[in-house]
């Protein structure tokens, strides 16, 4: 025998043996008691919790509210779409399954995995996580045939938004798209893969359009078979909406601006309802619903014409001579005699600086009426000098400029009406006398949106009520404020606008069968240097970005039907020649072609 072995006879430690015995008994007693507590004492409670786990709840999708134009034509509808969902708990190998999905659909493998991990925590147990919101038919067929071998994958049928008119009303409707993480956190009614309004009325009316999901409950047995289904809660459909937009008119206006950038707005001045709301170029909002590809998005984003820009409310331009309506009416209210004349030699001097009238030869003797009708710059230089920035901006703000109109669309711009304080804050310089003159003819710092101009013209026509611009046909008119303008003075402005059409700068609009009033505007984008001033360039000779913006603000009455039509053509050139034909054609549509 080996001697390295220790001698025998040394007994194992007694305390140790007692310890081991004690531990065995302790283990048994501890866990037996715990098992008794869990399985006997609280068994019924846990059995109920397990039964609760066997209840699977599925959402029943609610149809989103339909949107129609004022004649009942559908503008936004729902179509069935087939989404690919993944029930995590049913999926034995998520990575392999995701890889298989990539193979079927051509989705980026890493993108899909990232999506899965990002949204994992947002999906309740046994709720399908929507991996691909919209499957094309060919892929649907492939997946249907193979899904059997890939437990966890599920085809989910959901309603999807479709806009039959596409780009025609995209700036009004906006669009819906898959909710992002932030929206899912904010709106508890949304679950992953749901669509949510992202722009336009779809965004502002989201709560009314969405509706409420229903709930279907089914019990499953241990093998996962559904035993019975009960509808616990019926879905409630979203609210249907009728817009004030008149689709044929909208389409007409849209076509008139085709190929150019600009806006056309038609408003009923008595109610504030918008009959046409066109911003060109438009974009096909259906692209956003199905998800934009990288290249589609790049095309939209980098388009020099900026199709996503809503020019009716999101672009603020210098108003040009349209602003003379503001300054002129303010002057009347400040006590300027409309009969008083001044002489226009074609320019006006302030100190050493010379301010030119658009008409080189001058207008001769000009009173209020002629000043507006002929859009004489010198007459308004003189008014601007007398009124000063404080009065002009006070009236401009009272007329609704420099603040949002409150239309039910997101991201509206307020524009800008300058004041002394603003100038000091912005540039650290005091207001200059010459800037009064620029402001009076609508140049300088003033920025207005086409919708603000529309609302102002409507107020001139409807007796001085500044109305909230409305997009829904059944909304009641909402008077926001009244113009600080007497009926007498208001009538003088309207008369001058009629004369502008009869014999002034807006002659293109003249027609015998209707009363039309208008005011043109040509807003300079680049200030002319003195040398260039002499030889004014023709619009066609200028590069696109330096061309003037063309304005035409108008109203028309025939057989008790009143309309306000405002057109703005971005870099269009002269107000009368660029915007005139558009507005003319709009009246042709509204009143019929004159015989």
């Amino acid at each position, binding site marked *: 025998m080996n001697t390295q072995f220790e001698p025998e006879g040394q007994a194992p430690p007694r305390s140790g043996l007692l310890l081991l015995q004690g531990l065995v008994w302790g283990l048994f007693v501890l866990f037996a008691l715990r098992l008794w507590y869990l*399985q006997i004492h609280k068994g019924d409670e846990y059995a109920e*919790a397990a*039964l609760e786990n066997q209840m699977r709840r599925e959402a029943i999708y609610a149809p989103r509210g339909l949107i129609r134009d004022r004649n009942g034509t559908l503008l936004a509808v729902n179509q069935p779409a087939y989404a690919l969902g993944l029930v995590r708990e049913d999926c034995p190998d998520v990575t392999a399954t995701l890889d298989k999905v990539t193979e079927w659909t051509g989705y980026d493998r890493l993108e899909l995995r990232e999506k899965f991990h990002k949204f994992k925590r947002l999906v309740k147990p046994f709720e399908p996580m929507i991996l691909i919101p919209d499957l094309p038919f060919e892929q649907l067929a492939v997946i249907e045939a193979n899904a059997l071998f890939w437990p966890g994958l599920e085809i989910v049928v959901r309603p999807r938004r479709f806009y039959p008119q596409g780009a025609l009303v995209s700036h009004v409707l906006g669009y819906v798209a898959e909710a992002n993480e932030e929206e899912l956190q904010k709106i508890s009614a949304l679950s992953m893969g749901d669509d949510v309004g992202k722009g336009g009325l779809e965004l502002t009316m989201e709560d009314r359009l969405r509706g409420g999901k229903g709930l279907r409950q089914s019990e499953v047995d*241990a093998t996962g078979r559904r035993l019975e289904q009960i509808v616990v809660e019926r879905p409630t459909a979203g609210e249907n909406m009728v817009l004030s937009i008149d689709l044929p008119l909208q389409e007409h206006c849209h076509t008139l601006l085709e190929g150019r950038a600009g806006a056309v707005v038609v408003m009923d001045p008595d109610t504030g309802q918008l009959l046409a709301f066109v911003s060109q170029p438009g974009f096909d909002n259906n692209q956003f619903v199905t998800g934009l590809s990288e290249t589609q998005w790049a095309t939209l984003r980098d388009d020099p014409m900026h199709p996503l820009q809503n020019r009716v409310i999101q672009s603020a331009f210098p108003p040009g001579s349209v602003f003379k309506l503001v300054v002129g009416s303010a002057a009347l209210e400040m006590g300027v005699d409309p009969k008083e004349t001044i002489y226009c030699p074609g320019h006006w001097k302030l100190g050493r600086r010379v301010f030119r009238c658009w008409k080189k030869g001058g207008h001769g003797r000009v009173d209020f009426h002629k000043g507006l009708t002929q859009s004489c710059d010198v007459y308004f230089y003189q008014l601007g000098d007398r009124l000063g920035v404080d009065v002009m901006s006070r009236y401009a703000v009272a007329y609704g400029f420099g603040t949002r109109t409150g239309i039910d669309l997101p991201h509206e711009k307020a524009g800008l009406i300058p004041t002394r304080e603003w100038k000091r804050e912005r540039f650290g310089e005091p207001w200059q006398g010459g800037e009064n003159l620029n402001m009076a003819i609508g140049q300088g710092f003033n920025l207005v949106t086409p919708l603000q101009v529309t609302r102002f013209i409507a107020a001139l026509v409807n007796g001085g009520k500044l109305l909230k611009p409305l997009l829904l046909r059944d909304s009641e008119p909402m008077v926001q404020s009244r113009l600080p303008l007497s009926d007498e003075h208001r009538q003088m402005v309207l008369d001058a606008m009629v004369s502008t059409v009869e014999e002034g700068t807006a002659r293109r609009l003249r027609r015998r069968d209707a009363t039309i009033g208008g005011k043109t505007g040509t807003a300079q984008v680049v200030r002319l240097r003195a040398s260039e001033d002499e030889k004014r360039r023709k619009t066609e000779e200028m590069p696109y970005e330096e061309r003037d913006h063309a304005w035409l603000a108008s109203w028309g009455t025939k057989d008790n039907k009143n309309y306000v039509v405002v057109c703005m053509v971005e870099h269009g050139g002269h107000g009368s020649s660029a915007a005139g034909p558009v507005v003319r054609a709009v009246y042709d549509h509204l009143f019929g072609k004159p015989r």
Partner: protein
Amino acid sequence: MTLIDRRIVQHINWGLIGLTLLLFFVGVLNLYSASGFRLEGGQAVQPYYQKQFIWGMMGLCGMVFFMIFDYRHLKVMAWPLFWLTVTLLLLVPVFGKTVYGARRWLDLGLFSFQPSELAKIAILLIAAKVLSKGQKQLDWVPLFGVMAIGMIPAGLIILQPDLGSGLSVLLLLGGVILYRGIELRVFKSLVVLVPAMMPLAWFFLLHDYQKQRIITFLNPGKDPLGAGYHIIQSQIAIGSGKLWGKGFMAGTQSQLRFLPEKHTDFAVAVFGEEWGFVGSIILLALFCMFLYHIFLAAQDAKDRFGSFLAAGVFFYFFWQILINMGMVLGLMPVVGIPLPFISYGGSATVVNLCLIGLVLNVSMRRFVFKRA
């Protein structure tokens, strides 16, 4: 030297073998149910139970191997094995491969293995060798000596980082130290000191996710869909089994996949759900009888080295059973320690059976030197 003496074969502890095999087959049966998988309109079973069975067969070979040689030869191997382990552990940060953010594996070409598994066996041998010397209860100095030896591999493992394995090594060593016995005054001081050290461990040893597990254990309702989910669903599974259970393959909690890790760490919850209180108590009793048989081996061993070896194996299983079942029954925080024979795991099964072989070795040679 005769390897297999007839006398020795006569003393084979058939009770322990029977209990071991019984536990193993209960585990395979339970795994069959736990790896059941629902397909559209039917069920399929993932082949975990087959793999477990094959590992078990390999383990049985290992068990026989660990029975044939005289266990006292292991005494000379204790120190070389210890230093080999330490060397391998030192190599891990250099050559190891990273899995889930921790370097624990050494790639040996054909297969990779965790030196931390080897460390458990090495500590078992060292503890038995060092602590079986002398009869006196341990005073401060020898206690610190033994602890220092244990801290070398344990510290290296914790640094990998693998807190679970590091602590198992220390727990195993601690168990054997308690078996040997500590001076009463030393023991009294430790009772005060160890809890006082807890806050230090909280701030310096634990990772955020580990702290989170402890917080969740103390208050699982705080995050019922996140970290508390495992704890709650596991208790629902066991509790809903009630007295008689839901029947084999009929546990809704496990078959519908509310149970996490149901074929590994939470496998015993599947058993509890399907076999109820009666089945669970029987399984618990089997485990206790199994431990009791190991205790008997320690008690009847011919020498103190053998006794301490058996005691080490006792603690090796005891801690795993305590921690795993404690976790599943909601008495302890979630720690990734499997339940011997019940949880799926290839190398664990082999090691478990080999250690049982060691105990059988000690037990069957208990009369070899008995004076007639």
